[in-house]
């Protein structure tokens, strides 16, 4: 545990050195970067070391200022989240030094240098918090430093709005968490969280706690009706910040849900059903919204909603398994969810970083203005392709493994063919649909951005600097490692499952027995070898001339006459039009000598624009009406207000 605390201190030192770089001092910039990288590496090492100790590593210090204890506890469940958090934080720091160079923008670079490690350290403490006090403190530091990172370029109107939306959402979530910890009681807040499975899930209070957790943590995670802040914040933040937000910070919501459900025994079945239903909703609608986007980072942000849905599917399965007593379902569902937490962190960070280097090169987030980037940025293209394959859940990368575990868990429900579990099987086609749509979405992104011909001549693109490439390469290597050798990660998942389950009953069914990971590795290896052979064969023949994409025998192809984001997605946006409500701005060509025509589609966030915004506007109008009634300027009546309040309080107290 000493090592772990040292790591966090190092990361904090990296943040504290940041103000020294404001004036553009390269020396302090390097120092800060080195401290941050060292801290994250040390943190990963410390996490792995702590896992090898039996039980969980605990650090307890007196915290007299607030009358409680400062408790850090590192168990298997926290480790699952800590490892990708440290990795992505370190990679992001490295990437940031190329993406947001200190020489070009010293002030905002120092700003990022300060808040980026702070966010990383806060996340590490959230994950290891042993009681409510530490948790809420770290949670708030995390939320606020997230806000400052999102608002890096706050002089732009769009960024300012995104930051405002983010902070409103995160504080609403925090409010629910305060209520949650109040219900858990003083012991949980000031001393230590209850042990796994020590609370009774059948009590009415337990359901209130669960609903509060679902709201508070769901807001942070971006579960479908509560995802409103996510697309704007992710799009507005610098890319390596988006990677950390999407890859790690929204997982804190998942962590909170998993941790909260672990506290209970005898879990009611409707908890699992609710989470499963939310998972299906988030995954399908998330990917459908993603398809309709033209802004590459907004698109990736909606994919986060989708993947959070997939994680919730796994968690819902595990909860159902506990309610109905099917051990295999618990093991597979939870393992799938947790592995997907790691995987999504890795490949989503990879995607955001490679999207970032595309933005770095082209200076725009509009998909419709990219094109033919693979020629000038082959490595970035390769990394993006890797991330895309992973997120679509295709072998040989890591996304496949976790989704496969969830599929296995889903089919476990049908093994005894218990009639009351049959609806859970419906989640399998939903997951398949999600995967298919994700594939379509990334075919669109990759095709538009990297294939075809450049859409504007002036766009002189270049490959990303080396620090950015190293960062992305590390993430792709990690993705490949999980995809090729999933078995190596099973002990990690097993210890997390043990930490989630109550200690008393029989330990979890062994994951390795349920999931034939060896054959996956073999198949993935074979696939890669075949791919390599095929590519080598092609290269030897050297017969591929470079010509524009075949345009259905159209004689004079123009760069402008290519598929656009709107046209590629038209099939799906048309199918889901009743829900997406895309707005089309269209001037059709008419007559023999048509005047200029144009077409533009936009898909705003339905829930934000049609649900939350009108509701808030109504609330604001009501509040200002009330203020006009209350603020009339008659001093005598002002005096009445406290008197009436006092009377009401006295009546309530009596």
């Amino acid at each position, binding site marked *: 545990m000493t090592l772990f605390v040292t790591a966090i201190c190092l990361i904090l030192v990296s943040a504290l050195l940041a103000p020294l770089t404001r004036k553009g001092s390269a020396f302090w910039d390097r120092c800060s970067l080195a401290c941050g990288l060292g801290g994250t590496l040390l943190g990963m090492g410390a996490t792995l070391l702590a896992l090898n100790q039996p039980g969980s590593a605990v650090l307890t210090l007196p915290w007299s200022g607030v009358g409680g204890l400062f408790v850090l506890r590192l168990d298997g469940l926290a480790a699952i989240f800590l490892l990708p958090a440290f990795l992505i934080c370190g990679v992001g720091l490295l990437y940031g030094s190329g993406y947001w160079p200190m020489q070009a923008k010293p002030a905002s670079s120092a700003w990022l240098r300060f808040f980026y490690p702070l966010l990383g350290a806060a996340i590490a403490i959230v994950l290891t918090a042993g009681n409510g006090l530490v948790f809420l403190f770290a949670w708030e530091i995390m939320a606020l430093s997230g806000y400052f990172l999102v608002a890096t370029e706050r002089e732009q109107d769009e960024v300012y709005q995104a930051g405002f939306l983010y902070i409103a959402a995160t504080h609403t979530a925090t409010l629910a968490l305060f209520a949650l910890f109040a219900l858990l009681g003083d012991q949980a807040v000031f001393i230590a969280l209850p042990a796994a499975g020590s609370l009774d899930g059948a009590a009415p209070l337990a359901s209130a706690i669960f609903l509060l957790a679902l709201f508070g943590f769901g807001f942070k995670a971006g579960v479908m009706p509560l995802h409103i802040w996510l697309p704007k914040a992710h799009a507005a933040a610098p890319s390596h910040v988006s990677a950390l937000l999407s890859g790690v910070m929204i997982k804190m919501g998942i962590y909170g849900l998993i941790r909260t459900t672990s506290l209970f025994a005898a879990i009611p079945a409707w908890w699992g059903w609710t989470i499963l239903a939310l998972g299906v909703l988030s995954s399908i609608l998330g990917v459908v919204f993603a398809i309709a986007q033209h802004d590459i980072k907004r698109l990736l942000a909606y994919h986060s909603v989708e993947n959070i849905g997939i994680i919730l599917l796994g968690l819902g399965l595990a909860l159902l398994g506990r309610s109905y007593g099917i051990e295999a379902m618990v093991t597979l569902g939870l393992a799938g969810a947790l592995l997907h937490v790691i995987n999504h962190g890795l490949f989503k960070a990879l995607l955001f970083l490679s999207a970032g280097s595309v933005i770095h090169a082209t200076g725009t987030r509009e998909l419709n203005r990219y094109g033919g980037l693979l020629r000038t940025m082959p490595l970035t293209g390769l990394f993006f392709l890797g991330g895309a394959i992973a997120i679509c859940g295709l072998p040989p990368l890591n996304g496949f493994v976790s989704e496969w575990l969830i599929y296995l868990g889903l089919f476990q429900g049908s093994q005894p063919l218990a009639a009351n579990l049959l609806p859970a099987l419906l989640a399998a086609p939903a997951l398949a649909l999600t995967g298919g749509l994700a594939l379509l979405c990334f075919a669109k992104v990759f095709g538009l951005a990297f294939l075809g011909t450049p859409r504007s001549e002036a766009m002189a693109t270049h490959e990303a600097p080396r620090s950015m490439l190293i960062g992305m390469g590390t993430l792709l290597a990690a993705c490949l490692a999980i995809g090729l050798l999933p078995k190596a990660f099973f002990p990690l998942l097993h210890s997390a499952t043990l930490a989630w389950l109550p200690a008393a009953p029989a330990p979890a069914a062994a994951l390795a027995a349920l999931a034939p990971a060896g054959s996956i590795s073999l198949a993935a290896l074979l696939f890669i070898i075949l791919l390599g052979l095929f590519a080598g064969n092609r290269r030897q023949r050297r017969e591929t001339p470079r010509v524009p994409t075949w345009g259905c025998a159209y004689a004079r192809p123009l760069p402008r006459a290519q598929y656009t984001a709107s046209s590629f997605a038209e099939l799906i946006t048309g199918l889901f039009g009743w829900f997406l409500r895309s707005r089309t701005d269209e001037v059709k060509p008419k007559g023999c000598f048509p005047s200029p025509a144009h077409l533009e589609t936009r898909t705003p966030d339905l829930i934000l624009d049609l649900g939350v915004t009108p509701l808030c506007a109504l609330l604001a109008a009501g509040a200002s009406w009330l203020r006009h009634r209350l603020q*009339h300027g008659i001093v*005598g009546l002002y005096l009445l207000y406290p008197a009436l309040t006092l009377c009401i309080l006295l009546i309530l107290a009596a």
Partner: protein
Amino acid sequence: MNTPPNLILLFVILFNFFILGTSRLATCIRSVALQGALLSLLPLFLHTSTFHTYLLAGGAFILKGLLMPWLLFRAIRQVRIRREVEPRIGYIPTLLLGALTTAGAFIFGDRLPLLPAHLHSLFIPAALATLAAGFLMLITRRKAITQVLGYLMFENGIFIFGTLLAEAMPFMVEMGVLLDMLVAIFVMGIVMNHINREFSTLNTEQLSLLRE
């Protein structure tokens, strides 16, 4: 029931109603002064005769019975007003409200968790009733000077409470007296002068421009 403190308190409550029902400013000032002077006798009957008790009684008498009315009379002479015209709520409704709050004070006073010595005495209801009457004055009247009177009645109510606590918390009552001084100097000396000079009136309604 016929002990001197109870008689004093009874008169205090009667003065409450009288002040609430009268429109002439001079009478109001006199009544508030008389109420204060009566109250200053309370510590003499309640506590053993020590220096502290005499200080309390004497101080209260001088402040409430002599200094305040003198200042207030001077003020109304300067601004030349005789009566409160058109209060926000009429005199009869105010009196009815006063009766209601007094009844409420008696009911509420019985339900408070008090020391056995104070239970069923007139002190708590009288204090609450005076507080409520002062509050009614503050709310219903428009002139700054009548509002000051309401504030002074408020103070008188607090003074009744304070005398019960005078031995347990020695400085409580003195603090209350100091508050009186604050009213005297601050509200009358500065605020009223300024309002008068700016608007040539003492109606606080003119001050509502700053509401937002």
